[in-house]
């Protein structure tokens, strides 16, 4: 007796729970590897998993075993020149070569590290573990334009496409029972009367009455027949109402200084920072759009390639970029529909007079509309006027404005974590 069963369509991730258990158990080990990887990886490289190694001794499952020492006889195949009584040197220091089961690795090669690969999702989980988007407030429902149809019970009218078949049939069934019951009762009575009449002695029978009853029965049967199987009266429709919902769209403005003082190294650092933020936003919103704004003395919206790689020289006026962002927000991203994030990177240079303009622009125009503004200053040197002005802004909007200094590539991830770490206490 044999059955063939095709299981290929079944769920394939039966081990998912066990896998997760393992990852949870070795969280600290894995996090360390992930942190190293984030710092080491090139910019375009965040979208894949990561190989992680854990020292074998940390994850061993111990059992009682024979240790080295004592006396053991080992049978091996493939004798070529040995004869009984031959005496041999011990191979390379270790005791007991060959087939003894004492060795921990059965593949022949030593394994000091247990290595495995994290999937992309798992990798990012670890990268952003314990982080949270600050001020992910649910925008006030009143000024939300975005709506989503949701099911809200059933109604008597609607379009044919939304007919709720089960409910309609149930209604029809109930109606049929209700409408047929009196007819059936009358029919039963008429039949009984007819039977009674017919069972009477032929002399006593009333043929007129019999004919009358027969006509009645026929009429009733027709009426019973005429009760419709389904009636427009029975139809029920799924009712949908429009529910306003918090926006699931976000736009991220990358603002970068490309004046002569920003080297390619600076830009790479900035790019990594932008990339981390992008990945992070992508996990929280269904749709994330990117807007690249670069500036020297004038600001310009560009595509990604140009943003990171084309070179410009000249002085720096930061406010030009901020006002361009403001303009773009007004034109294309109404704050009622979009969650707005701005990440700015610069080396801190600015025309002195301009920094004050920046502060005003931020305080009055931008900050009230933004979800979050992050500023990273990539410089080993002392801060200049821009930093000081921004500190004022940070004082005004401590929840939504964050700024940090980055000196070298290794700082990015820690700074990023610091900017977005979960603020449990507040």
């Amino acid at each position: 007796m044999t059955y063939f069963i095709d299981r290929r369509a079944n769920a394939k991730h039966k081990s998912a729970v066990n896998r997760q258990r393992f990852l949870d158990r070795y969280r600290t080990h894995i996090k360390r590897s992930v942190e190293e990887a984030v710092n080491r990886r090139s910019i375009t490289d965040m979208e894949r998993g990561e190989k992680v190694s854990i020292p074998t001794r940390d994850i061993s499952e111990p059992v009682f075993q024979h240790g080295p020492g004592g006396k053991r006889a080992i049978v091996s195949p493939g004798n070529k020149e040995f004869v009984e009584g031959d005496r041999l040197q011990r191979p390379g220091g270790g005791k007991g070569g060959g087939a003894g089961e004492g060795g921990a690795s059965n593949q022949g090669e030593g394994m000091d590290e247990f290595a495995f690969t994290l999937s992309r999702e798992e990798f990012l989980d670890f990268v952003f573990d314990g982080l949270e988007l600050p001020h992910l407030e649910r925008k006030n429902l009143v000024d939300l334009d975005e709506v989503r149809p949701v099911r809200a019970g059933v109604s008597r009218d609607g379009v044919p496409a939304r007919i709720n078949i089960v409910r309609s049939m149930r209604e029809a069934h109930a109606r049929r029972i209700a409408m047929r019951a009196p007819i059936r009762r009358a029919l039963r009575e008429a039949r009984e009367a007819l039977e009674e009449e017919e069972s009477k002695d032929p002399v006593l029978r009333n043929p007129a009455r019999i004919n009358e009853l027969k006509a009645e029965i026929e009429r009733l049967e027709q009426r019973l027949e005429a009760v419709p199987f389904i009636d427009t009266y029975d139809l029920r429709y799924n009712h949908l109402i429009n529910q306003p919902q918090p926006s699931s769209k976000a736009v991220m403005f990358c603002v970068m200084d490309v004046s002569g003082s920003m080297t390619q190294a600076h830009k790479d650092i900035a790019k990594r920072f932008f990339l981390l933020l992008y990945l992070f936003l992508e996990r929280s919103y269904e749709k994330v759009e990117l807007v690249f704004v670069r500036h020297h003395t004038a600001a310009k919206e560009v595509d990604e390639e140009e943003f990171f790689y084309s070179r410009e020289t000249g002085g720096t006026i930061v406010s030009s970029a901020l006002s361009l962002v403001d303009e773009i927000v007004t034109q294309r991203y109404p704050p009622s529909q979009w969650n707005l994030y701005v990440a700015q990177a610069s080396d801190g240079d600015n025309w002195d007079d301009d920094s004050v303009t920046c502060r005003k622009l931020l305080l009055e125009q931008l900050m009230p509309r933004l979800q979050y503004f992050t500023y990273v200053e990539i410089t080993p040197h002392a801060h200049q006027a821009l930093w000081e002005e921004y500190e004022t802004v940070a004082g005004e909007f401590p929840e939504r404005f964050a700024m940090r200094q980055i000196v070298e590539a290794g700082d990015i991830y820690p700074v990023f974590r610091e900017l977005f770490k979960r603020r449990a206490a507040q």
Partner: protein
Amino acid sequence: MMRRTPIATGSDWTFEVLEAYEQELARLADEYRLDTYPNQIEIITTEQMMDAYASVGMPVGYHHWSYGKQFLAVEQAYRRGQMGLAYELVINSDPCIAYLMEENTLMMQVLVMAHACYGHNSFFKGNYLFRTWTDASSIVDYLVFARKYVAECEERHGVNAVEQLLDACHALQNYGVDRYKRPSPISAEEEARRQKEREEYLQAQVNTLWRTIPGRQDGDTLPGSLGDDEDPLGLHRGERYPPEPQENLLYFIEKNAPLLAPWQREIVRIVRKLAQYFYPQRQTQVMNEGWASFWHYTLMNRLYDEGLVDEGVMLEFLQSHTAVVSQPPFDSPYYGGINPYALGFAIFSDIQRMCQQPTAEDREWFPDTAGSDWLETVHFAMKNFKDESFIQQFLSPKVIRDLKLFTVVDDDQDEMLEVTAIHDERGYRRVREALAAQHALAVREPNIQVYAADIRGDRSLTLRHVQDNRRPLARTVYPVMRHLHQLWGFPVKLESLLEDGSVARRYHWPLPDDEEEEKVRH
């Protein structure tokens, strides 16, 4: 010359073709009197195979991180191409579940059906160890019960508490087996029904044991109990508990550990029951694989003889078969110990040869086997032995010569290794004995038993390890003792005894302060 009408050619398969081949195999297997459970053949994908691998082939299992680790290891090895997945996996259950991978070629599917569905399956049904120790009809149900129970415990007591308990149990898994006493069959329904009852009963039992004030009895004093001067009333004297050493550590813990909660005892029991289920498999690897390989070889050849497969399939089969039963010599880079497929296949084929074409040597060594009915004899061998006794009984000089087996003795009191026996007249018996011992579970695993539980004193538990040829325990003894201590709840000790009965070494957990250092040094 007969005309060949193969059922199918090429390497693609369909369900119709597989069914047709399966029927032919069933017909041939019947001719050879292979008695099997019904087959349930499941076609699965590569990933599903990795899942199956990770859960040691159990179709369902409780959740534990170690299975996740297993899965990651398999996945990594497979992705890097270090390892091919096994072509099949078969579960000792009734019906017998066999997994076939979808990417196998037609030849491979037929080979796997012959190997698993008729080879392994008949072994599971026929071999005495399996007949005695496992109940194929209820294992899947029991696994379902176990999974549900563990999941419930996780809900009630937290994932962490359950995980730590399972860690501890797994460390002692190999010592959760009754080696000599037949266990009662397990059945899921029964288990679920009795579980509640048992919970209360067990707890009552344990409480009684620890509450009892024993009467004065003559007998051994407990290890570490007080001398007569300090105990004039003899309160600490009495019979040692347990009166006989206990080989089943987990059983002893389940019934006697003072502080375990009822649900914890039940989980100890689950691990123990599953260990018991796998116990026969650990002792019949050579026989089981040898038997299955012998039959896939025989059945495939019969299919070819009858013209049901073509030359292409047959060549592919022979190449695959040769790879499976090859035995690289000890100095080859591919050497990974004795290949159970090679050894088992060699012995079973040799039994057939001895029956059909006995030589004078065979008549001298195997007077009962030589010239007997071969089918009768291989069935007898399959049914009544385990690896150790099978090798002892059937390993012939010819196989020893073919494999060029030799014995090296490694003695730490000797500077050199010594070759003590090779494949010659003087060596056959000794090689055979050593090879049999090498496959004996009793030799492969340290012999450790429960010696005493100090129920009148500090409640410490003492284990005894009897060294085999002065072989000490590996360093893993410390973490295992730690796990044991978690289960027992009071100090645990382990005495490692030489064969003359003197104590070579004592281990304690928790570690005494001075030993802490010693452990670090090791």
